[in-house]
Each structure stands twice: as structure tokens, then as C-alpha cells.
């Protein structure tokens, strides 16, 4: 069922950014926003517009639902374990 919790979108921007060793400023420059927008977005204090969400997903080369979700994300380790179990 589709349900938006507290009118908030969850995201993995911080994870994707640190994975690539980028600073907030570098990521902000790449998607043409200011660094504080990235900071508040990562913290969940701000919901990105559809345009910015697509820009970020495109920049990281991931489908948009990998970076943004209306439901809280599972831990990456849990997802990997679940995927491994499914593969076996």
C-alpha cells in the first residue's frame, strides 16, 4: 500500500554521497543547488522537488526509488543479507 509517513520522503543521499567521497558542496554544485539544501535534504528537514530528486538520482546513476522513498529505508546490510538469502 502506498502511504506517505508524516508527509516526508526518506532518502539515501548521504549514503550515496559518502560512498563516492563527495562533499556537500561538490554534490550541490553538481546538481546546481546550495550546500545547505543538500544538508537539510540529507537530514530529512527538507523534501526535494521532483526535479532535484531526478537530478540526484541521475547524478548517482541509480533509479529514483533507490535514492528516495516514502517509507523508511531498510538498513543496507539487511537488504544485502536478504538479497544473498534470496540468491541462495
Amino acid at each position, binding site marked *: 500500500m502506498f502511504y506517505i509517513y508524516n508527509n516526508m520522503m526518506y532518502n539515501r543521499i548521504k549514503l550515496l554521497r559518502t560512498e563516492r567521497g563527495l*562533499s*556537500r558542496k561538490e554534490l550541490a554544485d553538481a546538481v*546546481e*543547488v*546550495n*550546500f*545547505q*539544501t543538500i*544538508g*537539510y*535534504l*540529507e*537530514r530529512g*528537514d*527538507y523534501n*526535494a*522537488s521532483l*526535479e*532535484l530528486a531526478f537530478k540526484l538520482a541521475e547524478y548517482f546513476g541509480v533509479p529514483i526509488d533507490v535514492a528516495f522513498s516514502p517509507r523508511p529505508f531498510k538498513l543496507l546490510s539487511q537488504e544485502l543479507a536478504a538479497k544473498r538469502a534470496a540468491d541462495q
Partner: protein
Amino acid sequence: MFNVKSWDGLKIKEGHLSQKSIRRMKFATAMAAFSFPLIIFQSYLPDELIYNGVSGAVFMGVLIFLAICFLVSLTFVFANPFIMRLSFPGKYLDEWEIQKSQDAKSFALCWMSVLMLIAVFTLFIIPDFIGGITVKTGFIEDIFWTLFWLIITLPMLHFIWNLTPLNSDEA
């Protein structure tokens, strides 16, 4: 050609979003917003409270202190890139700034509507129904200047008081 987007003096830097910086801005905007009405409306205090021996000297001291605070905080507030950005057209702002700017302006509009209604009722409508009420000369102008000042400062107050610190160690 002058390009407001690329002018470094108007860019928000990480230091501006530290807890200390935000606390300073909150204090300065509150001082700038409320000291002006206090200075204006001191003349409506009963005469026996003012210019009466020691209490008069204390009162003058407080007034001078308020005036200095007002000027200092005003300089600080208007030199701040956050506040400057509130007055920029949307094309120079990114989406977070546009949203914050719109929230601040909506907040100010709501409060100004309420304050204007109160002012109109108390100054023009109520005295029409209740006879014998006279206002001091210049009172309406003072109300006007206070409301005018609040139009400018209420968005600033909303913007700054809703900012949360963004630590650089989160980067």
C-alpha cells in the same frame, strides 16, 4: 555584468549555519524587530514614569541602550546573506531558499493581516461607536511606522528562528 548568483558576498557559507552564528542572528533579528516599536511607543508611557528624578535617568539610559542595540542589530541583520537572500527574486535562489522565503513571507502576511485588522478596529471603528475616545497626535503615524517595520522584520524573524544548525561534521 554584475551577477548576483556568483557574487561571493551574498553566498551562504557553512559558518553561517553553525549553532553560534544562528543564535547570534536570532538575537540580532529579535532586537532589530522589537527595539524599534519599543523606542516609538515609549512616548506613550504616562508622564509621571518619565523624566522623574532617578527613574527618568534610568529610563533615558534604557532608551539610549535600546537605540544603540537597534542600530547595531540592524547593521548585523542587513549585512547577513540569509536576510539579503529573502529579498532576492526567486530566479537567484535555489529551491530550499525559495521555500523558506515563501514560508517567511506567508507568515508575515498572516500576522500583518491580523495586526492591520486590530489596528483598523481600535483606531477607526471602535472610536466611532464609543464616543469620547481621542488618540494622541501622531499615534496613527506611529502605528503605521510600526506596522511598516514589522512587514520588513517579520519574514526575517520567521526565516532565522526556523533555521536549524547544520554542522560541518555532518558533511
